[in-house]
């Protein structure tokens, strides 16, 4: 009986493996590894093969993508309960995930899962989750997040989402997807450029820029209702929206009074107030996590560089002095550093600037790498790059060790931004 189950499991897995890439808009290709990879084993959950989507496959893939774990293939022994575990069978494994799936009468699915310390031979934690059938990927991401947090001490970001623009010819689509590229949803599809999507702090809204009115206009769209409103459509350019941590204000860039400058505006479009007065280009603002400072790109010194200024203040301090140009600063979630696009010698690199040491660390080899943003746990950086002449997304760990490329099936993928933790 078990043999039959196994056979069915593997057939299903093979089918899933062949079928899944076609479902995903983005596929992931990983390069590099963490300094020390934690060996873990994820045992396929009992009765999982009855589901359309394997949960443990999602968990395994998430952990693998992070580059911090080495996944040990389960041996022929497949325990599902703690009492079934023979620890001697799991030498070389630090943690072991087991669980089972039960389809309830109402069609929902109940998932029980435990994480065991294979060295200390203790249970680290266990949880039971009930969800709709089509939410198995979400459950898998949740479990992966818990394993990640338990074993690394940092919260996982597998359940978080990203936004990006998929351009195919004239068509531009604003897309929201899981951080692994699956579960993608088109938020807006128009035949004019879409730029600069920005998540509201609660992840419920996106602000973005389009040229559909013949000039750059800032919109705010609800992801729940899909309703959108014009935030700013002054003459000239309206662009570079970013939310303040309070979720009630945004910083935007307007050229209505001359050169593009940074303004503060309430999320309903009222209370416009100008913040910079340089007469040069001031753009790409980003709020510090405490909301007190703004990072931005300015060419007031002749070349585009990164500056910082208090939101309530007029003096800006230049932060980057490295050769070449620097663009698109984004604070780390702890506010101790920022990531930016570093252009030197015709190449764009993703680099991190540490406020305390005032040192820059280049994270990538360089190419056409732009618009970086931190994952909400600060451990990864998502950015746009190019592969085989097409725009693709990539993720690099904030220490530069692990790199993933997310390739789209069609067109260019650009303007990515990583969303917040789901509340």
């Amino acid at each position, binding site marked *: 009986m078990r043999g039959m189950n196994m056979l069915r499991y593997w057939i299903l897995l093979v089918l899933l493996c062949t079928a899944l890439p076609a479902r995903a808009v983005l596929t992931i290709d990983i390069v590099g590894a963490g300094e020390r990879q934690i060996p873990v084993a994820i045992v396929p959950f009992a009765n999982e093969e009855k589901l359309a989507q394997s949960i443990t496959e999602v968990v395994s893939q998430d952990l693998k993508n992070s580059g911090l774990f080495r996944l040990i293939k389960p041996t022929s022994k497949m325990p599902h309960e703690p009492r079934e575990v023979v620890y001697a069978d799991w030498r070389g494994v630090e943690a072991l995930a087991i669980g089972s799936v039960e389809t309830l009468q109402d069609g929902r699915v109940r998932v029980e899962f435990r994480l065991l310390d294979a060295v200390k031979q203790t249970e680290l934690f266990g949880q039971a989750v009930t969800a709709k059938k089509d939410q198995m990927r979400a459950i898998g991401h949740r479990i992966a997040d818990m394993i990640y947090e338990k074993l690394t001490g940092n919260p996982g970001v597998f359940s978080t989402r990203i936004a990006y623009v998929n351009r195919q010819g004239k068509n531009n689509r604003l897309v929201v997807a899981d951080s692994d590229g699956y579960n993608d949803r088109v938020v807006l599809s128009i035949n004019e450029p879409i730029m600069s999507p920005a998540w509201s702090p609660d992840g419920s809204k996106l602000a973005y820029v389009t*040229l559909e009115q013949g000039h*750059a206009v800032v919109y705010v769209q609800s992801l729940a209702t899909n309703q959108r409103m014009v935030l700013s459509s002054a003459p000239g*350019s309206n*662009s570079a929206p970013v939310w303040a941590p309070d979720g009630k204000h945004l910083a935007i860039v307007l050229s209505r009074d001359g*050169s593009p400058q940074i303004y503060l505006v309430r999320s309903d479009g009222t209370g416009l107030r100008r913040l910079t007065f340089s007469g040069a280009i001031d753009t*790409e603002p980003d709020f510090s996590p405490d909301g007190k400072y703004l990072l931005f*790109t300015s*060419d007031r010194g002749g070349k585009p560089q990164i500056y910082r200024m208090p939101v309530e203040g007029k003096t800006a301090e230049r932060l980057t002095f490295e050769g070449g140009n620097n663009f698109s600063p984004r604070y780390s979630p702890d506010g101790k550093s920022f990531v930016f*696009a570093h252009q030197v010698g*015709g190449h764009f690199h993703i680099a991190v600037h540490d406020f305390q040491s005032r040192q820059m660390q280049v994270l990538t080899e360089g190419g056409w790498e732009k618009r970086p943003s931190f994952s909400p746990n600060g451990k990864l950086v998502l950015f746009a790059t190019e592969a085989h002449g097409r725009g693709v997304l990539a993720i690099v760990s904030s220490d530069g060790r692990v790199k993933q490329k997310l390739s789209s099936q069609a067109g260019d993928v650009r303007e990515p931004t990583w969303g917040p933790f789901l509340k």
Partner: protein
Amino acid sequence: MKNIVIGALLASLLVACASGGPPAGDLGRRGQAANDPPPPMAVDSAPGASVEVDTLNADYSDNDPSSVSPTSAVDQEIAAQEAAEEIAAQEAAEEIAAQEAAEDAALLAAEEEAAQEAAEEIAAEDAALLAAEEEAARVAAEEEAARVAAEDAALLAAEQAAARLAAEEIAAQEAAEDAARLAAAHAAEVQSAALEATKAAEARAAEEAARLAAAHAAEVQSAALEAAKAAEARAAEEAARLAAAHAAEVQRAALEATKAAEAQAAADAAAAREAANAAVEREAANAAKVAAELDAAKAAAAQAAADAAAAREAANAAAEREAANAAKAAAELEAANAAAAQAAADAAAAREAANAAAAQEAANAAKVAAELEAANAAAAQAAADAAAAREATNVAVAQNAAKANAARDVARDAAKAAAAREADAEASLGAPSDLQAKRSIFYPIDIDAVPEQDKHTVQAHAKYLAGNQNRSVRLEGNADERGSSEYNLALGQRRADGVKKMLLLGGVKESQIESVSYGEEKPAATAHNEAAWSQNRRTDLNYKVK
């Protein structure tokens, strides 16, 4: 006596030593000696030296001063010394001889005295005599022994002196030889040092000369380079000035051509206007004439007169409409002409405007014709109504119709001419003479100010827009893909706004201008290289009818 002789010998020896050769420490004289030609018996070779020693020995043994070699100061001194010594030796020998003679005489005297005393005292004392004889013999023997000893001592002294002399002579000669050798060696050293010094000096001089030559060459080269650079710069300047002058000329010519075209267009429009006015006037006159004729015919038929009046009013109204239309046509012609002048800059717009103008013109001409025909018909109706018999009226009406046709033809011709001018204007599109033909401003990387060479283009657009306030322009700024998309959006906006500022300065109203940015989002060229990027760093001026 002996002491004096020995002292003289010693004194002569000392004199000989003191005058023998220069002091060893006198470098000046040694150096000078080194410069003198070497003596015949040079000290270059040891055999020569040994020969010299032999010669000196032979001179000494010959005891002949005349055989001393006169060619050497050393030899002469040695010879003099030898002569002195020989004289001293001779004198010593003579003194010895004299002494011997004196001693002999003294001895004889003593013997004679003794014999005298013996003879005197023989008688007294034989024994004493004997003793005296014995004593005398003993004294004589002693004296003889002393004399022999003295002679021996003198001989020995003379021999020793001679030996010493010979040894000293040899030593002196050797010293002289050494001195000469040293001098020669020193001379050789000095000579080689001098040679080396000369060589070093020559090398230094050569080096210096080379350095100077190199420096000079470098100077010459740099001067040449500078001259070349200056020449290039001058040439470039000249070329730039020529190019600028040429550009200015071309621009002036273009402006003049534009002006001429404008003037031509204005003249044409005026002519058309005049023709139309004349036609209208004629039309009006004819209508008046018809009315007068109708008035004259009123007596014949009051009804006809009333109809004629109505017809006249209709004709007048038609004429007014026509006049208005003609004016409108003229204005449109003017606009079309102006559009033609501007057409070089705005090909599509000009073409559209021209087409529109031509179409409108044709429509207007048709309208005019139709209206004229309507007027004719009305007039004809009126005439028919007034009096069919009134041939004159009919003739007038027919004439009227003909004139209307003529006016219509004029209008058609004007329209054709306008169309032809449009065609000409279009044909001139793209010609570099027309600044407005340039509809895009291109920029260096990361620059948003209008480049110097494109300012005239923008000014030409400003002039046109300032003079045609019914026209407006949309400025679309673009950037290449380097930089962030947001930075590039800002950069494109600054580019468009830079053009906008120039247009405003040129008298264009703000309401005529819209400036937007597409950033890097709408590239004209999609390749990822400078050729494509340079196409994408651009502001486009797109005209539109307000």
